[in-house]
């Protein structure tokens, strides 16, 4: 592995240095026209009486993680492992949602890997990803598979959003946003499908993985909502 990286650096190092030098020369020349800001309408701004608002940004990149949560179904959201402080961040509804009044409780294990990108309008989408969630009390296994930007179980794009939460440096990811009709998950052992939403928060970025401050939430159309819950074990990593 180390040898491969060294080869990579040797192979690409010299062209990269030449490219970097050329970049500095070009940038330091008088190039005002190049730096002139694009007109608002070309940037996709939404303009109104109070001015122009840039299009929504999408922090593209990769998220991965897995582990276990033990949601208790505490409606008051006061259980020790409830991440109640981060729950409404990003405009997320408090659990249980208005459309589904049941909690998913007991052991819930999961693993995931998603790559975020943006569509032509600037909205966050999942280019590819896999999400597996096991509800042990229900003996249900949900799976979401996204390839080439579409959900394998309904052929629709899967939209996502990222936002900061109440933990210092913490950031959350929601896959299957409410405003875009969630995403479709396969449900085993029955083999059916249902709408679902997945949320994770990386609250210990770059820190040793022993603080147990990362969190996960799973919402399923028929079974309910775990609520945003601190991990009992495992890890969530925002690599963007």
């Amino acid at each position, binding site marked *: 592995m180390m040898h491969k990286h060294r080869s990579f650096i040797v192979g690409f190092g010299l062209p990269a240095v030449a490219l970097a030098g050329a*970049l500095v020369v070009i*940038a330091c020349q008088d190039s005002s026209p190049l730096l002139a800001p694009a007109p608002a309408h070309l940037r996709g701004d939404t303009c109104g009486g109070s001015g122009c608002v840039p299009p929504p940004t999408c922090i593209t990149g990769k998220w991965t993680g897995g*582990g276990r949560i033990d949601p208790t179904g505490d409606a008051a959201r006061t259980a020790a492992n409830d991440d109640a402080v981060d729950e409404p961040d990003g405009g997320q509804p408090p659990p249980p949602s208005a459309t589904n009044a049941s909690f998913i409780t007991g052991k819930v294990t999961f693993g995931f890997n998603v790559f975020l990108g943006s569509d032509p309008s600037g909205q966050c989408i999942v280019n590819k990803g896999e999400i597996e969630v096991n509800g042990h009390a229900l*003996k249900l296994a949900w799976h979401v598979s996204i390839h080439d930007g579409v959900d394998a179980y309904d052929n629709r794009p899967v939209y996502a959003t990222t936002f900061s939460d109440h933990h210092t440096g913490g950031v959350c990811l929601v896959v299957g946003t409410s405003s875009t009709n969630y995403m479709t998950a396969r449900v085993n052992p029955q083999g059916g499908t249902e709408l679902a939403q997945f949320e994770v928060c990386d609250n210990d970025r770059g820190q040793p993985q022993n603080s147990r401050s990362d969190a996960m939430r799973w919402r399923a159309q028929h079974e309910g909502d775990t609520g945003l819950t601190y991990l009992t074990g*495992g890890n969530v*990593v925002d690599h963007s």
Partner: protein
Amino acid sequence: MNGKSMQWMSCLAALGLVGGLTAGFAATGVAQSVAGQAYGTYVNTPAATSGQSPLAVLPALSGTDGAEADAEGSALSVANTLSSDFLNAITSGALGTAETGAQSTASAADLNILNGLITADEVVANVVSSSTANGAVSNADGSTFANLVVAGVPITSGDAPVAPNTNITLPGVGYVVLNEQIPTGDGVTSSGMTVNMIHVFEQTPILGLLGQVLGYQTLGEIIVGSATSSVGP
């Protein structure tokens, strides 16, 4: 902002980008690897064999890639040896510039080993390995047994952990290691952990000429709930 100041900003931005490229190449010089695997059950005894099932293995990763693998099993039965249902195995991992990590989870429910010698409502194995600028660490937090009974003795009530590497004799059979934890790595640039929630060793005594026990020979093994993760150079 006048044209001259914009030119200077452009120049500084380019220098910053060059710095970033340099740092990026430096980061790639720190080679990293990641691995993960999980499975529900494994049987290799004189009476029966059953491979690691269901088995999830993290595919080989390179660059700054990431992946997830999982496997599900509704029920498994190995005559007179093992039965279980709702078996699941998940592993995921990714290489990153700031953090590289892998995590794996395995579970098996309604467990019955050796005709009731060991029973449990469920076992969950959970491991995580992570490498950052602070070093490399692994742990098995979240690994538990639900209502585990060994040779008629309740070990856990409800869902609870058991101390790592708890060894219990199984008369006439051998012994079992509960929450068997096998760490690897130096804790600086590498770290890994395998946890086997239930590891049964079937043994037979080695007898001397006078019938005295000289030792034990392992004839077979049964593993339930195995999860492995590792990060390294």
